[in-house]
């Protein structure tokens, strides 16, 4: 299966640039997290991908074909942009309206409703659905044509923890079958838990595209808070440790990236320094994300 390729995308609204020369690739068999602060151009980029917004210049293609040129787009690309539904139409009927162009039968509609956990409320009007139920219905709609690509804009919004776990497993299985997922979310720990690659943008520009494995998340630095900074510094440098001093709202502390908690602990114990706190600082996607944004300023 071919990747999604976004190439030199520019979108300007009345001279204001929402997307600036954006290029990235979404690989099949992987979940790609699409990150950026509010107004970074994520939604605009996703709407351009599926032909709802026309780019000023540049292309976005699925295996070399733009969404609007796909013969039956729902069978190639599934898309969850916003979970808007006609309030009177039932969830089942909403899918039935989308089914003819997706080539899906009523049977497939009912199967999907069951799969996303809406089987029992399928015939209720969408107005009676919670936001989480709407997100599930939107996902079922995206899956109608059994697509090869999934594009999801903030799908975890208003899902409960159980729903988020379900979504995570669903997307992991989808990607594991060799298909491609592009998912935007502001829930960074969610992306951390499910993405294989990340694409980070800010103000319409690409900041980073990389596999999550390159971020070395989880590898930590030892942090120590002690009663006597000078004595601790002396003891640690005497064993050749790389020690930095840092300050936060609780005061000064030490960071020792070269040694783990047990090594630092035994050195401080034998030097007689009272230890108030001794932990491993784990770097997570959120810290990476903010340091990328800092770097772009």
């Amino acid at each position: 299966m071919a990747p999604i390729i976004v190439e030199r995308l520019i979108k300007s609204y009345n001279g204001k640039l929402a997307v600036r020369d954006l290029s990235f690739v979404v690989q099949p068999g992987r979940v790609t997290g699409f990150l950026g602060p509010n107004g970074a151009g994520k939604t605009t980029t996703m709407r351009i991908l599926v032909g709802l917004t026309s780019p000023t210049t540049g292309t976005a293609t699925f295996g070399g074909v733009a969404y609007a040129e796909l013969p039956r787009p729902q069978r190639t690309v599934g898309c969850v942009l916003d979970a808007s539904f006609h309030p009177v139409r039932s969830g089942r009927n909403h899918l039935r309206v989308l089914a003819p162009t997706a080539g899906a039968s009523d049977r497939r509609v009912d199967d999907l409703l069951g799969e996303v956990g809406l089987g029992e409320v399928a015939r209720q009007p969408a107005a009676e659905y919670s936001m989480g139920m709407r997100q599930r219905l939107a996902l079922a709609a995206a899956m109608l044509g059994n697509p090869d690509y999934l594009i999801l804009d903030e799908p975890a919004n208003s899902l409960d923890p159980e729903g988020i776990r379900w979504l995570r497993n669903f997307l992991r299985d989808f990607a594991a079958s060799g298909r491609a997922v592009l998912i935007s979310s502001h829930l960074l720990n969610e992306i951390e838990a499910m993405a294989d690659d990340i694409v980070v943008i800010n103000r319409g520009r690409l900041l980073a595209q990389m596999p999550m494995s390159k971020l070395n998340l989880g590898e930590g630095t030892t942090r120590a808070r002690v009663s006597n900074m000078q004595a601790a510094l002396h003891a640690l440098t005497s064993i050749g440790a790389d020690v930095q001093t840092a300050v936060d709202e609780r005061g000064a502390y030490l960071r020792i990236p070269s040694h783990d908690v047990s090594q630092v602990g035994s050195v401080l114990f034998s030097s007689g320094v009272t230890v108030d706190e001794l932990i491993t600082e784990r770097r997570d996607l959120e810290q990476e994300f903010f340091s990328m944004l800092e770097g772009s300023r």
Partner: protein
Amino acid sequence: MSGALRAELRRISTTKLWWITLICIFVLSAGYAALPAAVALLQSRAGVASSPFTDPGIIRSIYNGGNVLSRILAMVVGIVAIGSEYRYGTLAWSYLATPGRIRMLLGKAGALLIFGVIYGITSVAAGMLVAVPFVTANNGSLLLDQPDTWRSIILGVCSIALWTMIGMGLGILIKNMLIALAVGILLGFLVEPVISVVFFLKRWDQLLNVMPSGATNAMLEITSPVLFAAQHPTPWWVAGMILAAWCLLPALAGLLSAVRRDVV
């Protein structure tokens, strides 16, 4: 049948509006058909007209009595079909399923025309049901053996179907559904009829013939003065083209503007 057309037929048939409108059209058309029938009956009792229920113009007026109202309701369905998509932000679903904008809108237009034909048949059927007791009680004729009667019936159905297109065009041009409905109903029920009545009273037949309601009357060959029909109407086929122009202009203008817009 193309997927886009089937999708749009389902889109309309899965809301309540279509059958509520159907019932309204049937009931109101029966009521409005009784109007010219009652007038003809009074004229006959007063000795003004000798045998009104054999007069083709009057019979056709009864059959198409509901047209004046049904076409407005058909227009409302057209407005809501597009307007509700803007109102509830569901247009993106339509475009995702059928990204070709002209194809998607042609699918909507086709589905609306099919529902318009159903409304038209319902309206004329109600008129014919009302005609039966009047005609049989007064030794008249339903004139169903005359091709002109059938032409009027078929054109009556077509004219109502065409009015759904006026609605669709208005719905695209005016994205706020409530404003589009207000404008459509105001134009259809007040502004256009008042102008037509002025033209009728001034006997400005040429102007009256190019108004939507005047063109509809001429197309149906309705001569009843109750419906402010022109004394010298254009031939039915010219009137049909005038009405088609009225219906298609807003639809085309709407199409052209929708093709360029980003979907929001």
